[in-house]
C-alpha cells in the first residue's frame, strides 16, 4: 500500500530534495493557535508534519517540549482534540503527511483499536511512539500496520548493527534517526557522525532516513539535509511558540505568522542545502 508518506518521499527524491520535517505540540499554546500554525506549515515549507500528543510525563523530551506539553495540557489539550486538529487540517490539505508523536499511555487508555480507527478516520498517516520498542510490537505497531498506518521507529546511536534489523523490521514510511544519545532539544549532533550513521542505516534498509534531535538553526538543518533524506526540527520551533506568550500567559497577536516565518527560514535552509552543495 502506498501511503501519503511514501508518495511524499518519492516526490522529494525525484526533486533531489531533502524533506523538512516539523514538530509542534498539539494544543500549544492553545487549540486555535496550533490549528493556525498547522494549516500554515505546508506553505511555510514543511514536507512532513509531526504533531505531538501531549503527555504529562514526556520522559524522552528536554525542557522545551516538556514545557510545551504542560502549556497544552493546561489549555485543555486531549487526545480527542489532537485528532480534531488533524481532521480540520485534512479538510484543506489532502497531501501533506501528518505523523502523531508521543507516548503510549494516552493511546492505551483510549484503547488501541478505537484509537486507530479514530486516527485513520481523522487523516493521520503515521505514528511515532517513543516508549514502544520492537520488543512490544504486538501492542500497537502490528495493529497500526493492519490499519494502514505507518509506524515510524526511532534508531539511535545505541542501536548497533546486531539490533538494527529488529528495529527496522516493522518500520515503514521513514526511519527517524535520533542523532544523539539524549533528550530532545539537547546538544547538536556532529555532522560527520550523522553522515556515517545514515550510511550505516541505509545498508540495512531502502526506507528514507530523517535525522532529528538538536537541530536548531537553518544552517544546521542544511548540514543535516546534505547527509540525510530529511531533517526534523522540533524544540527550536516549540521555543519560537513559547516566545509568543506574554508574561500574563496570553498569546500575542500575530503569533502564528511569526512562528511560520521562522519555519520558512528553516525550510529554506533544508531546501537550499543540496543546491548549495552542488555549487
Amino acid at each position, binding site marked *: 500500500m502506498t501511503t501519503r508518506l511514501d508518495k511524499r518521499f518519492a516526490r522529494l527524491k525525484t526533486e533531489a530534495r531533502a524533506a523538512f520535517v516539523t514538530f509542534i505540540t498539539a494544543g500549544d499554546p492553545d487549540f486555535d493557535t496550533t490549528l493556525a500554525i498547522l494549516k500554515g506549515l505546508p506553505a511555510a515549507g514543511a514536507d512532513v508534519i509531526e504533531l505531538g500528543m501531549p503527555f504529562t510525563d514526556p520522559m*524522552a523530551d528536554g525542557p522545551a517540549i516538556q514545557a510545551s506539553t504542560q502549556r497544552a495540557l493546561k489549555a485543555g489539550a486531549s487526545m480527542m482534540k489532537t485528532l480534531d486538529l488533524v481532521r480540520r487540517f485534512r479538510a484543506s490539505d489532502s497531501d501533506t503527511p501528518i505523523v502523531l508523536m508521543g507516548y503510549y499511555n494516552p493511546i492505551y487508555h483510549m484503547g488501541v483499536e478505537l484509537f486507530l480507527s479514530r486516527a485513520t478516520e481523522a487523516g493521520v498517516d503515521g505514528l511515532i511512539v517513543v516508549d514502544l520498542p520492537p520488543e512490544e510490537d504486538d501492542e500497537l505497531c502490528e495493529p497500526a500496520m493492519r490499519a494502514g498506518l505507518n509506524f515510524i521507529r526511532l534508531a539511535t546511536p545505541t542501536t548497533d548493527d546486531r539490533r538494527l534489523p529488529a528495529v527496522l523490521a516493522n518500520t515503514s514510511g521513514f526511519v527517524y534517526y535520533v542523532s544523539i544519545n539524549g533528550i530532545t532539544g539537547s546538544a547538536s549532533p556532529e555532522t560527520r557522525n550523522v553522515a556515517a550513521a545514515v550510511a550505516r542505516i541505509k545498508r540495512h534498509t531502502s526506507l528514507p532516513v530523517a535525522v532529528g534531535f538538536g537541530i536548531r538553526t537553518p544552517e544546521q538543518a542544511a548540514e543535516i539535509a546534505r547527509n540525510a533524506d530529511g531533517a526534523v526540527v522540533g524544540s527550536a520551533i516549540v521555543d519560537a511558540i513559547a516566545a509568543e506568550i506574554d508574561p500574563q500567559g496570553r498569546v500575542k497577536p500575530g503569533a502564528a505568522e511569526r512562528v511560520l516565518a521562522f519555519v520558512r527560514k528553516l525550510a529554506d535552509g533544508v531546501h537550499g542545502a543540496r543546491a548549495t552543495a552542488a555549487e
Partner: protein
Amino acid sequence: MSTSQANSLRNGPDERGRFGIFGGRFVAETLMPLVLDLDKAYTAAKNDPAFQAQIDFMQRDYVGRPSPLYLAERLTEKFGGAKIYMKRDELNHTGSHKINNCLGQILLAMRMGKTRIIAETGAGQHGVATATVCARFGLPCVVYMGTTDIERQKPNVFRMKLLGAEVVPVTSGTGTLKDAMNEALRDWVTNVDNTYYLIGTVAGPHPYPAMVRDFQSVIGNETKAQMQEREGRLPDSLVACIGGGSNAMGLFHPFLDDRSVKIYGVEAAGKGLETGEHCASLKGGSAGVLHGNRTYLLQDEDGQIKDGHSISAGLDYPGIGPEHAWLHETGRAEYVSATDREALEAFQLCSRLEGIIPALEPAHALAFVSKLAPTLPKDHLMVMNMCGRGDKDVFAVADHLGVTL
C-alpha cells in the same frame, strides 16, 4: 505445603518481563540495548556463587543482617487478637530496607564496569541508601529528587550530601517521586556509556521489577526461617505498606506458594479514597503504561498521569510494581489502604507502646494491623514489615500535630 514448580506463583516474570499482562519493557530505543544488557548481566550474576557470597558478606557485616523478627507484645496486648511480629528492617544500616537492593545493584554495576550511579528518590531513603553504597565503593552518585520532597525530607537531603552525593532538585510536575524518575531516565538516556541507573523499587522496565524483588527477598526468606525457629510454623498473615512496593514484594515473594499465608499490601489512602487525593494505584487507578512497565496507575480519562497525595513521601507515587498488579488481579494478595490520619495515629501508638518510632510508610501497614488484628484469634501469627525508622519524619509529624520544634 509448597505447590509444584509448574503451578508456582514464583516463576514470573516471563522472558518478556511480564507478570500476566503487567510489566514489560516500554522504554525509548536509546535505552533498550542498555536494558537488554542489564538483563544479561543480572542473569549471569545471579548464577554466580561468588556474587551471592559478596552480597551475603556485606549484608552481614555492613548492613547488620539478619534483622530481628520481634514479637510486639504490647501492641499485641493492645489490639487483643493476633500475635504481632515485626520484621525489623528499620534496624538496617541507613534505617530502611532500601539498602538491601542498593547493595545488590551496586555490586552488579561494578561487575558491568559502570563508573557513575544515578538514582531517584521520594522520601530520601533510597537516595540515602544509594549515596551510602556509592561512598562505600567509591563511585560518583547523582540523586534526583523533587523539590516538594526536598522540602519535606530535609534531614535526608543533608545526609545524602554528607555521603558525597549530588542531589539534583526536580521542579517539573509536582516535584515528587514520579518527576524525579522522569529526570533520572533523561539522565540515563544522555549518559548511556558509563552510567548505571539504580532504581529503588520493584518498578521500571524488565529486569528491574524482578531484580529488585530478588534483592529484597532476603526479608521474606529470613522471616520464614525466623518464624520457623520461634513458632515452628509458617505465619498466618503478612502485612506491608506499598508505594512502588519493594519492601512488600521482598516480604511476600518467598511466601507466594504457601497458600495458607494471607498477604495484605497497604496503599496510601491520603486524605481518603473518596477525595481523589491519595496514592492508591490499585484501589483508585487503572491499567496503564509509565516508566517502562504496564501496571496500575492513577490517571485521568485522557490517560494523563495524576499526581498522588500522601503524608508519606515514600508512598507518593502514582504507580505500583507490576508484580503487585498481577497479584492483585489473580487475588493471591489482598490490597487495602490506610489514610494519612490513620497512619499518624499508628505512628504515635507504636512510638509509645513499643518504643519504636516507625517511618510514616510502615505506619500505614501498622494502621491496617490495628484494624485486622483485633478480629483474629490469639494463635494467629501476623508479620508486619517495619521497613523504615521514623527519624526522617519527626519534623513533618510535628508539623501535622501542630507542634513547633
